[in-house]
């Protein structure tokens, strides 16, 4: 069974046209379907779900539609805070991934309150991508690493695939096992491009508000059919990463010895020691940097909540 499923919940507006209702009604039904799908996932022991709720590209829509979506989101986050006891009881941790500074301030504050309130919950996880695109997320991760270099916390030679992954908005989650896109579109639309490189991709033609439990089971079946080849590919990739890291560390040690050594070649044992020391210091630097990054992110959210309290 997959542990983490990601959804591109596409088709709300086409559903609205089909049912001859307002677009906003399509989005509202879409939200209800999300709540229902989350319950199904929990029943199936799927404890982490990531959804694409609002793309940075969606800001291009009409002002009415964007305002409507912002208002819908605000209402839902306010409702979530009302449900705090329930969320605590079920251990639901809510995270919002994206560039929150692009959103209206009051929505930012509601989001911050929901995220901070559920921060320590750890039974199941809902990650909502809001004001998100994968390219922005990756560029942001690179910017954060550059910030780490500016702060003297890490060196440019510490940059690796693993470190970049740790700087993404999704750093606290494992990669999705399964990515489902509804409404028949067969593209990724800038969603979790880094994280889903070895995920099972399932494209289903059903419109999101019409999603059924059987559609979900069908997708999970696809995941199971693809399990072994994907596991193998992932393992191979991880092996490659480890080799690359070893080589990078070796090059780093060679560089260090060249600049600080006394010119005499080291014997094999001393070289091995130098390599171990280098790796250990790199890992320590990286941990300190990641701690500072987490602190920066936590403070951003707590500042928003204290603003909200004063308001």
């Amino acid at each position: 069974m997959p542990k983490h499923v990601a959804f591109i919940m596409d088709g709300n507006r086409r559903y609205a046209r089909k049912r001859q209702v307002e677009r906003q009604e399509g989005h509202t039904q879409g939200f209800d379907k999300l709540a229902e799908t989350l319950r199904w996932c929990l029943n199936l022991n799927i404890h982490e779900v990531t959804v694409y709720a609002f793309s940075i590209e969606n800001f291009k829509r009409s002002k009415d539609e964007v305002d409507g979506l912002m208002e819908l989101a605000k209402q839902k986050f306010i409702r979530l805070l009302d449900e705090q006891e329930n969320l605590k009881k079920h251990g639901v941790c809510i995270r919002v991934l994206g560039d929150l500074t692009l959103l209206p301030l009051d929505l930012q504050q509601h989001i911050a309150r929901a995220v901070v309130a559920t921060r320590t919950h750890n039974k199941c996880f809902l990650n909502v991508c809001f004001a998100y695109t994968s390219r922005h997320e990756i560029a942001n991760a690179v910017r954060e690493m550059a910030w780490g270099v500016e702060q003297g916390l890490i060196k440019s030679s510490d940059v690796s695939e693993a470190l970049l992954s740790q700087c993404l908005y999704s750093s606290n989650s494992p990669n999705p096992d399964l990515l489902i896109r509804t409404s028949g579109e067969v593209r990724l639309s800038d969603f979790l491009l880094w994280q889903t490189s070895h995920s099972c991709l399932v494209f289903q033609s059903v419109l999101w508000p019409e999603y059924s439990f059987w559609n979900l089971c069908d997708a999970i079946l696809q995941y199971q059919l693809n399990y072994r080849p994907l596991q193998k590919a992932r393992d191979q990739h991880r092996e490659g990463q480890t080799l690359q890291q070893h080589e990078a560390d070796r090059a780093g040690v060679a560089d260090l010895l060249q600049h600080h050594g006394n010119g005499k070649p080291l014997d094999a044992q001393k070289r091995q020691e130098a390599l171990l020391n280098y790796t250990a210091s790199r890992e320590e630097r990286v941990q300190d940097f990641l701690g500072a990054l987490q602190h920066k992110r936590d403070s951003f959210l707590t500042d928003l909540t204290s603003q909200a309290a004063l308001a």
Partner: protein
Amino acid sequence: MAVGISYVSVYDNHGVFRRNNSRLMDEILKQQQELLGLEGSKQHSVEFLNNGTDKQDHQVLSCQSVVNVLSPDDGKLRIVQAAQQLCRAVEQMEKTSKDINVTVLDSLLRESKSTPDPDLVLKFGPVESTLGFLPWHIRLTEFISLPSHVDVSYEDLFSALQHYASCEQRLGK
């Protein structure tokens, strides 16, 4: 080439195509001559991009095809290398972290100035995954699956292209 597609890339997640680059090139040229004849092949030149050793910027002629051979190293590894490059620039005080954005990263990841992002991926084989294929470049790529590359027919390719033609991208709107 016959349908007029200017840029074609091939990928396998074990890097086999990349390692046997020249053999692939020879095979493509041989088949081109078989299909289009000697004269036809002369009119339709094919350029092979050999990642990293990209030649000087050229004029894209109306009949020219560009073939690119890709492997997993062109995916996340390339992005990491670009990130290292930017961080080194910051280390050397040539850039600040605030200078880093999607546009800057995208220009570092462009194979060459003229190669566009893939519009369509034809995926052969039963595995439902991108298996590490160019994560950065596939944000708007349409994915169409075909069961196998062995004995794939022109009809298969054509119906995949018809499917592609019916895709409507709203680009967020």
